[in-house]
């Protein structure tokens, strides 16, 4: 028997009437996702592994304590980039081609290099994105309206350090030491432009690879330039300890400073007494900070799951903070009936009222970055960084 067009249409209508609620409920029970492109192996694995633990804790907390997004679970899709731009790009393409647009609402990438490489495609896909990088170029809502930096940019961190120099010495002599990488070079033009405006003189500018076998000659060049302050940037505690030791061995009295990736306690373990007084710009609380209720809450949650509460690194706390905020944006988008990529971007743009529990100053984005930081000073006796300023709000 051959079915007529009318019979086929009727059957289709009947089927859609029966199955569409089922399809809708199935779709609603499917988890919402965030892709994570992290350096889980290679030279940045220390940050990637610690960060991933933070992301997983934030996800578990959101699902188990906060009930997900209106009952829908959230989950992470994790890929290892090995801190390699081509590997990260391939992982990104794989995820984008595989995942549904209504489920994959955010991508959490890694390096400055990878983020800059992906940025045009991110903009084209209107896909919300953040990264472990605090590159200034990424915090540009006009060009990249869906990219957010969950902290101050490297320029902001430099601005905070320059403010500190100005408070301490005024017309100071400043030396810059940075790595020959996208990461290292990012804030340098800004510093070179701002320092003279603040009455400071850049007396030396040293560029090095990300890792060096010896820093004696580098320290000697700095010593000859006789700076009051030395700002290091673009390293992950591979060059700073060598430089600090060499500088102190040569009797240099300058104050050394660094940005986010120098703000980990391992600096003091590696450089020993030479690290004393090293000043860093860092925008989350340390694990031992007992003024941040968010850290207390997290410790209780970890304890309830039988996890240890030994020291967790800055990378862990940073990833936990960003991920918690992203899930909150999902929740708000869901509550507003806009559970899609545009809805998440809209939520993030209006998160200023979110109680951060002291995990960061505020979620009020200014040009898609959070321009707030504190300055800390290394105290080798206690092995900790002590806050030397309250929150510094940058422009």
């Amino acid at each position, binding site marked *: 028997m051959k079915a007529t067009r009318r019979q086929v249409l009727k059957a289709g209508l009947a089927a859609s009437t029966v199955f569409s609620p089922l399809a809708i409920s199935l779709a609603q029970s499917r988890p919402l996702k965030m892709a994570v492109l992290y350096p889980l192996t290679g030279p940045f694995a220390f940050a990637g592994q610690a960060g991933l633990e933070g992301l997983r804790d934030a996800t578990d907390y959101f699902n188990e304590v906060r009930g997900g997004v209106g009952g829908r679970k959230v989950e992470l899709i994790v890929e290892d980039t090995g801190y390699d731009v081509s590997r990260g790009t391939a992982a990104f393409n794989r995820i984008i081609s595989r995942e549904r647009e209504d489920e994959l609402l955010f991508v959490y990438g890694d390096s400055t290099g990878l983020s800059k490489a992906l940025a045009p495609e991110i903009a084209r896909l209107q896909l919300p994105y953040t990264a472990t990088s605090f590159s200034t170029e990424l915090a540009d809502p006009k060009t990249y309206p869906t990219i957010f930096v969950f902290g101050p940019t490297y320029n902001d961190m430099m601005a905070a350090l320059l403010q500190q120099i100005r408070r301490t010495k005024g017309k100071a002599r400043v030396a810059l030491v940075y790595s020959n990488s996208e990461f290292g070079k990012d804030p340098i033009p800004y510093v070179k432009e701002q320092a003279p405006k603040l009455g400071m003189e850049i007396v030396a*500018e040293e560029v090095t690879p990300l890792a060096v*076998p010896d820093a004696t*000659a580098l320290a000697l060049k700095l010593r000859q330039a006789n700076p009051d302050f030395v700002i290091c940037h673009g390293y992950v*505690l591979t060059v700073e300890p060598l430089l600090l030791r*060499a500088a102190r061995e040569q009797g240099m009295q300058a104050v050394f400073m660094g940005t986010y990736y120098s703000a980990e306690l391992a600096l003091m373990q590696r450089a020993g007494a030479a690290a004393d007084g090293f000043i860093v710009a860092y925008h989350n609380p340390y694990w031992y900070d007992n003024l941040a209720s968010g850290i207390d809450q997290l410790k209780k949650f970890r304890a309830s799951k039988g996890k240890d509460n030994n020291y967790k690194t800055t990378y862990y706390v940073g990833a936990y903070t960003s991920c918690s905020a992203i899930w909150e944006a999902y929740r708000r988008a869901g509550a507003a009936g806009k559970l899609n990529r545009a809805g998440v971007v809209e939520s993030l743009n209006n998160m200023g009222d979110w109680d951060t529990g002291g995990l960061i100053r505020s979620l009020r984005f200014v040009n898609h970055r959070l321009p707030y930081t504190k300055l800390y000073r290394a105290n080798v006796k206690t092995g900790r960084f002590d806050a030397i300023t309250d929150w510094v709000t940058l422009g």
Partner: protein
Amino acid sequence: MDLSLLPQFLITGLSTGALYALITLGFVLVYRATSVVNFAIGEFLLVGAYLVYTFNVAPFNLPLPLAMLVALPVAFLFGWLIERGFVRPLLGRNVVAVIMATIGLVATLDGVAQLVWGADQKAYNGELPGQPIVLGSLVLTARSMWGIVVGIGVALLLIALLRYSRYGVMIRAVSESETAALALGINAPRMVGIVWGLSAALAALGGVLLASASGPGFHVIALGLMVFPVAILGGMDSVPGAVIAGLALGVVQALSTGYLEGSLPGITEAIPFVIVLLVLLLRPYGLFGQSRIERV
């Protein structure tokens, strides 16, 4: 250009170069004995640096020099096991297969190191003993002294052992011709195992000295990559060539850091390879490599 800094750059370069030479010696010995290019030499440094770390922290808590001494036989065993389990089954196979296998060894050792020691940032407990010597503007740090003394000392000792000791002569015999060595009653497989063990021990020594201030970690692998230009420049199969090329490239890198990096960022990483390319154009077998005539 400030020439008053030249002595300091030379000292720094010699110290780093001595460590390059030390690591490259192990690499060259392996190449001579088995014709295998060990692409995992950076990982050998990593494992060596971590082995020293293991003995340097709880529960052993050995001082750094003692931890180095204790770790050396373990590193030797590690190299010997790699040869037994990984390299020996591949000998005689297509050269591409062996190259691919050693590249596979890179990924395997990276994974194993991360699994065993974790990815977190570590630091050695304590420092290398010694006080810096300051002579005017010249500073000789304890790390530099250790680099020069251990690097050059061990390299010279190794050359002497290869030349004059019974085992050294047997290793050289195997390097020249495994078949002839076997015909003379030399236990060639044993010698090859020893060479791999020696290479791993030298890498451990180099790894820990390179990482003594920055701590053990995956960045050590990047420093270990300098072995390739040093070995190629020296001539791949030349032991004295490895020492001279190591020292030379160490000094060149230090001078580049001092005088060129500011105006040409990135030049320090590139310059060893540029020099190697230029030398190979004039001397295809490196500065001290044996030229071979191959009939096809």
